[in-house]
């Protein structure tokens, strides 16, 4: 399991990194944490001619609070986010990160790298989708920002061009009255999920103002739906989760379109999604009202 030979560049600035990528004419890959990329190289499923290592670029390993958003730089490790008091303002990161691979992978793996890799079974793209995160991409033609809905374009495919680097991501911090849920089912802890959900419910006054769910492991990318009406109609019922179930099952038929594989059929994934969706929407609602989760 040795990668095929590649040229290695470790530039000192983001501009140099972009220029080096552009010079590879599409045969270069960005190396940040490498926890998704290196296995691909080791298995020789990918043989880029050049790796552009951005770990030498100063100022990319930051966690900034910028007004209503938490900004995480391109080389910030997942484990550093787990430890960051500032990241507690985005509760979904704290809920999801323990499920991203193992501790040993999060030591090196980056938040932005997971987003840029865009595995359809990965947790962080779903968190970005559910929160409506903003992604900042830098290339030879300058800097642009994209909402998560435009960033993710398919399985392991994003809007990042061949001469561009995902420089940072901004997650909106939790607002008062906002509650969150996260759950996934994987065969072993640390594996990619067979199905998973990320939920967000905003309550203003006593009314449900917003409810959003993103499913992952269920399609070629995280699938996000506005479920405000569903949650509104179920709130007030004696058993909220049970009241959400029929709607969640209908939702599962809509969003779960991944093919089955040896680990679970499409039908099984739909059932997982429906159960998790009802449970975690109910949990997000309870959290939004300050009730015990």
């Amino acid at each position, binding site marked *: 399991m040795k990668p095929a030979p590649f040229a290695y*560049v470790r530039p000192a600035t983001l501009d140099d990194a972009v220029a080096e990528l552009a010079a590879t004419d599409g045969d270069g890959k960005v190396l940040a944490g490498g926890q998704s990329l290196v296995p691909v190289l*080791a298995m020789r499923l990918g043989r880029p001619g050049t790796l552009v290592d951005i770990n030498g670029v100063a100022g990319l390993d930051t966690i900034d609070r910028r007004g209503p958003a938490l900004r995480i730089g391109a080389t910030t490790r997942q484990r550093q986010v787990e430890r960051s008091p500032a990241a507690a303002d985005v509760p979904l990161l704290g809920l999801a990160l323990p499920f991203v691979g193992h501790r040993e992978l999060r030591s090196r793996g980056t938040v932005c790298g997971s987003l840029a890799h865009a595995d359809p079974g990965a947790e962080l793209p779903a968190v970005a989708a559910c929160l409506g995160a903003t992604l900042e991409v830098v290339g030879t033609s300058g800097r642009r920002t994209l909402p998560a809905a435009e960033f993710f374009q398919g399985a392991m495919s994003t809007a990042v061009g061949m001469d561009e680097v995902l420089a940072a991501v901004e997650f909106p911090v939790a607002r008062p009255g906002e509650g969150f849920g996260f759950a996934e089912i994987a065969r072993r802890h640390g594996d990619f999920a067979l199905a998973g959900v990320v939920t967000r419910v905003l309550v203003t006054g006593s009314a449900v103002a917003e409810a959003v769910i993103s499913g992952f492991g269920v399609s070629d990318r995280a699938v996000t739906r506005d479920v405000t009406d569903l949650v509104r109609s179920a709130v007030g019922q004696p058993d909220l989760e049970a009241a959400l179930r029929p709607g969640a099952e209908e939702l599962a038929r809509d969003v779960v379109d991944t*093919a089955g594989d040896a680990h679970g059929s499409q039908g099984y994934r739909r059932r997982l999604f429906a159960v998790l969706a009802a449970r975690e929407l109910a949990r997000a609602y309870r959290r939004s009202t300050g009730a015990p989760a």
Partner: protein
Amino acid sequence: MTTTQSTGTRAPQRPVKASADELIDVAFTVNGTPVSVQVPARMHLADALRTNLGLSGTHLGCEHGVCGMCTVLIDGDAARACLVFAVQAEGTEVVTVEGLGTQESQHPLQQAFSHHHALQCGFCTPGFLMSSYDLLANGDGEVSPETLPEEMSGVICRCTGYRGILAAVADVAETHPDGIPEPMNCAPRTLVGRGGAAHASGGAPAGSPEDAVEQEPTELIRPTGTPTITVEVTRQLASPVEDVWAVMDDIDRLARCLPGAEMTADLGGDRYRGRAKVALGPVRLKFDGLAQITERDPGDHTLALIAQGADTGGNRTAADIVLRATPGDDGTVLVAEAKVFLSGRIAQFGRALAGDVSQRMFEQFADAVDRTARTGTAPEVGAGPSALRIGLQAVGAGLRRRAALVVSAIRDRRRRRQES
């Protein structure tokens, strides 16, 4: 409010630019000793530790980040030494199992592993020791019987050592509530590499057989057994069924409808040789393969074929495919059914991805058939920006057939996406 927190604890690494066959000087600290090695860019840290520095306590299992055998500490946090290139270790502090303790003066974790018989063959022990050190040194101090198995799930044992391992870690956590001792064998000393300069200069030879050997399948066999993926896709085309069939019946034009695919030879008897490229994020595969049309029914507008392909990396794919065009309300309904068989590393990697990719490929394929049916002109080989850009420059002999594969429920998908 803006507060900035730089998470970095050390100076940025120096700039490097090296060609693939160049050796790179890397300086870092191992078990308290400053070291300098010369390595090719593709050599991972575990190989540099073992080969260049003689620290063979770091074991190698899978070498793609799954088994945890090679776990070491990098700047205090446990990490897979097979998923970090040695060149990336520049300026870091690495601790290996050799740094944890010595035979004469064992770390409490090593004593506990011994006491609880937390090993049988011992191959995974270095990984478990470094992973458990990280847990107890860097965790919040609480280790519960409920969460410990998950916390230790980053390393795999294959000879039933888990109970002993968990007991050992729980024991050390309990006896050291205020934290465990630092690694006990980290002091400057001389490290002597094994194998001399030839080995020290790095991993496998650049031209390993896998890089060179071209595999060219010569025989076509109908695949049997349980398919890796079963796919069924239905696509509504605007063109009339006769026009669609004209494309299906012309293998040259049909092949061109698969992005990235190319027919290279007509072998006669409805057998064809072709090649195809698949690009999916960092994954880039080139397949050479064969296809044979096994049934061609102009009345029913049905085409059946089997296909197989292989790449130079030992990945193999085979498919049993049926394409059927039927007149629809407003054009043609094109249905593809396929059983796809994958082997090699692509099968390990695949999960449900392969099926989903196949679905995307078929969408593009069907659209290209529709376009070709309308214009009469086949697209250029591999040309045309795909809707998914790099997503799906699909496929040839083998994999390209997977395109035809694919999944159901495609009908409303694009519309739903647009609404969402």
